[in-house]
């Protein structure tokens, strides 16, 4: 008879499941998807949120000085934050909040605000915990909560009925009863973002108080992402929820040097909270990246010292920046209206969200057939009109996404919006192009820059 001889060959490729379950379902990412697309087409990039200009020269100088500042600038520093930086941050925000903040116990420096969020969720959220997220939300909150084993619970901001005047982010509100209904014994934390990305809403004191009351009543933590805190317009004031009574001891406040100083590539951020919570973030931090780079922390410290000294005066960059962006914001809104779109004027932040429902466009691309309408619209905009934006349904939960397919987001922290395109495009061409992943400017800036920018001022 025949014998079946089994030959066991050495397995060079693993046969079992390789990845941990915690990364399941998180491989897609809106930025990775759209920056890829943007780099394939020559576009005016109002999509991803970063300035198309550099940080103020005093920051670049501070970094260069740090680089020449001796051997210790290039070696490990204190793991939880370079001493000079944590001290000035504690002093700076202590003055704003009217409290003594302990730089060593209550401030943690992280690799961007992104990393501060990650440390917070990993340190404090467990399997079985619920985390309330206000929609629309910066997209990373959801995967971060889930990777920590938590369950996201969503509460949408909803536009109230507005007649006549232009839409504003102030018209988007939470329903207090609905918010209250989301709290239960499993609720560990609520995440708020003010000024909000993508809407630009600046939460008012009474809105924050409503949230604070619920946090206190249900003994819940508050994670407050305040990266755009300096960017408020039309006399709006940014309010720190941690400054409300009873909130310091239960709030993690997150900030960003990248957003504060238009240096998103520096990746220096921080988490600020009471020591009994921060110690847990520190434990996670020391077992994940441990240290943050030294020299940029020195540079940010210099920047904050300067801002501390000139705070509230004309010289303050934190005052000049929103003043600069004010005009860009209005210009973008006007351009969008002129082509039949309905922008929501943001009270704060980098971004403007626009209702696209009034613009009827034939979207014939078979590749995007099954995608939400705003994704399809943005892809058409990129491919056919050379203009990049970001679809807002990506900032909504799976259950609410379908209701918000008519909005797209533009970033207006762009000099191109104020340029006299014909005369200045040469300089723009030299200094800038749009994103990447596969090339920083070794590709030519868009030749049709004038044409695509003019799209904004022409009827479609």
């Amino acid at each position: 008879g025949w014998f079946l001889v089994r030959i066991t060959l050495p397995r060079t490729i693993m046969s079992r499941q390789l990845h941990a379950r915690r990364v399941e379902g998180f491989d897609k990412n809106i930025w990775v998807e759209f920056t890829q697309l943007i780099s394939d087409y020559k576009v005016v990039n109002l999509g991803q949120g970063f300035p198309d200009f550099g940080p103020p020269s005093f920051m670049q100088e501070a970094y260069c000085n740090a680089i020449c500042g001796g051997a210790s600038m290039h070696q490990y520093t204190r793991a939880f934050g370079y001493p000079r930086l944590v001290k000035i941050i504690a002093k700076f925000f202590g003055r704003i909040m009217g409290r003594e903040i302990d730089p060593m116990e209550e401030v943690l420096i992280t690799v961007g605000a992104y990393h501060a969020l990650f440390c917070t969720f990993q340190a404090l959220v467990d399997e079985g915990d619920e985390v309330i997220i206000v929609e629309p939300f910066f997209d990373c909150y959801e995967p971060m909560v889930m990777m920590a084993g938590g369950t996201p619970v969503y509460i949408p901001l909803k536009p109230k009925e507005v007649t006549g005047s232009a839409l504003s982010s102030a018209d988007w509100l939470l329903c207090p009863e609905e918010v209250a209904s989301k709290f239960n014994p499993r609720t560990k934390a609520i995440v708020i973002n003010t000024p909000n990305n993508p809407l630009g809403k600046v939460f008012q004191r009474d809105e924050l108080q409503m949230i604070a009351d619920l946090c206190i009543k249900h003994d819940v933590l508050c994670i407050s992402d305040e990266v755009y805190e300096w960017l408020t317009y039309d006399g709006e004031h940014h309010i720190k929820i941690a400054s409300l009574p009873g909130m310091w001891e239960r709030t993690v406040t997150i900030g960003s040097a990248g957003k504060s100083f238009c240096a998103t590539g520096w990746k220096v951020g921080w988490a600020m909270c009471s020591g009994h919570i921060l110690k847990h973030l520190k434990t996670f931090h020391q077992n994940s990246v441990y240290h943050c780079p030294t020299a940029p922390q020195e540079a940010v410290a210099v920047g904050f010292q300067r801002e501390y000294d000139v705070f509230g005066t004309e010289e303050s960059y934190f005052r000049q920046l929103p003043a600069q962006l004010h005009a860009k914001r209005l210009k973008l809104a006007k351009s969008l209206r002129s082509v039949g779109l309905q922008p929501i004027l943001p009270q704060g932040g980098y971004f403007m969200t626009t209702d696209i429902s009034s613009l009827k466009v034939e979207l014939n691309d078979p590749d995007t057939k099954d995608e939400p309408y705003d994704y399809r619209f943005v892809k058409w905009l990129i491919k056919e009109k050379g203009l990049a934006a970001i679809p807002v349904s990506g900032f909504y939960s799976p259950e609410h996404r379908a209701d918000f397919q008519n909005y797209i987001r533009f970033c207006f922290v762009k000099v191109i919006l104020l340029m006299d395109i014909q005369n200045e495009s040469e300089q723009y061409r030299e200094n800038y192009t749009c994103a990447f992943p596969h090339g920083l400017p070794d590709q030519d800036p868009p030749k049709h820059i004038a044409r695509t920018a003019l799209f904004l001022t022409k009827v479609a």
Partner: protein
Amino acid sequence: MIITQLIHRCRSACCVLEIHPLRKLFSTKSSMTSVKQKNAKRIEGLEKNVWVAFTSVASDSSIVNLGQGYPDIPPPSYVTEGLAQAVMVDRLNQYTRGFGHPSLVKALSKVYGKVYGRLIDPFKEILVTVGAYGSLMSSMQALVEEGDEVVIIEPFYDCYVPMVRMAGAKPVLIPLRTKSSKKTNFSSADWVLDQDELASKFNSKTKAIIINTPNNPIGKVFTRSELQVIADLCIKHDVLCFSDEVYEWLIYRGHEHVKIATLPGMWDRTITIGSAGKTFSVTGWKLGWSIGPEHLVKHLQTVMQNTLYACATPLQEAVARGLLHDFELMEQPDCYFSSLAVELQGKRDRLACILQQAGMSPVVPEGGYFMIVDVTALNQDLSHMEEDKPYDYKFVEWMIKEKKLAAIPVTAFCGDESRKQFEKYIRLCFIKQDSTLDAAATILKNWSKA
């Protein structure tokens, strides 16, 4: 007063019924000790860290610090100049590609393509992370979970165990042992793995093994045949290999760094980790990388995009320029990758000599920038110190206080069961200026004087 006492008592009892004075009217549950504010289980028991205990020493200039592993020699000037140049370019101050700045991943692909002798896809087979530390973390988070076991060789760089535990998995330890019956002239090559013992650590739950070559703290450079033994087990049991090779360029005369990923059958199951900080003597830049096959690296990239998103742009651009600079010089004496090793060999030999003269027994490393030294022969009486700490912790504390010389206790790098094996060893770092080593020499020369 009463409220403060109540708060104090409740804090220790973890009581949730405490009344906060300001919010009496709203809730009986608001408190700083509430159950809800407890940490996540994944970080439980991971608060302590040997570095936090010993790095405060670094700021005391009266102490000669051969403890924490960072250079006090300056980095190459073209590297720091590259950073200054990058910062002055506006667009290089903004976000770059999440998985690694294009010019950096391309430079890494070039350098390592040559080292590995294979084409490495810069976009799919490389991930840039916040230091090698970040690569270790990304690898664990991406590929290791509850129910898994991870084999770790002792002594190990101390973060491996907490990272494995944070991923929910179980660390399985196996010590390097001295096989030699030598009485003097110890080398890191004398420390080996017992093959049968190693094989016994592998089972169906084993997900990965972590190796570190050159090893921190011993400085062992694993030979090709030693790596083959590990590779055979990985293939037999279908296990991943995380190879921490941050000291890959610091190899001393007569030895060769072998990448386990180049052994047959290993590329597809290995993540190899490198470090800009160790390569260019810029530990404060915190840039590292993971290199491996796409089907593994893509999961690390998923972790990256959901945790940090991207590393800093100017630093990445500067490392790219540094790598390209040295790529052109590879195999020449001017290349920093080899010139640093030559410089350190002299320091290594000098330190070994002065330690011997002081009556200690150094283990001369084949690679890396650490040396462990056996202090048994000194017979230092430490009975007046705290009972329950290992001998090396007590010795280092005593040495810092009495001799003004700092080192790191080697039991920080091993599990409890191996404590007895390592507690007579301390670790010294020799990537230090000559003046630092001179100061150490003076202390060691005067050691036996009261």
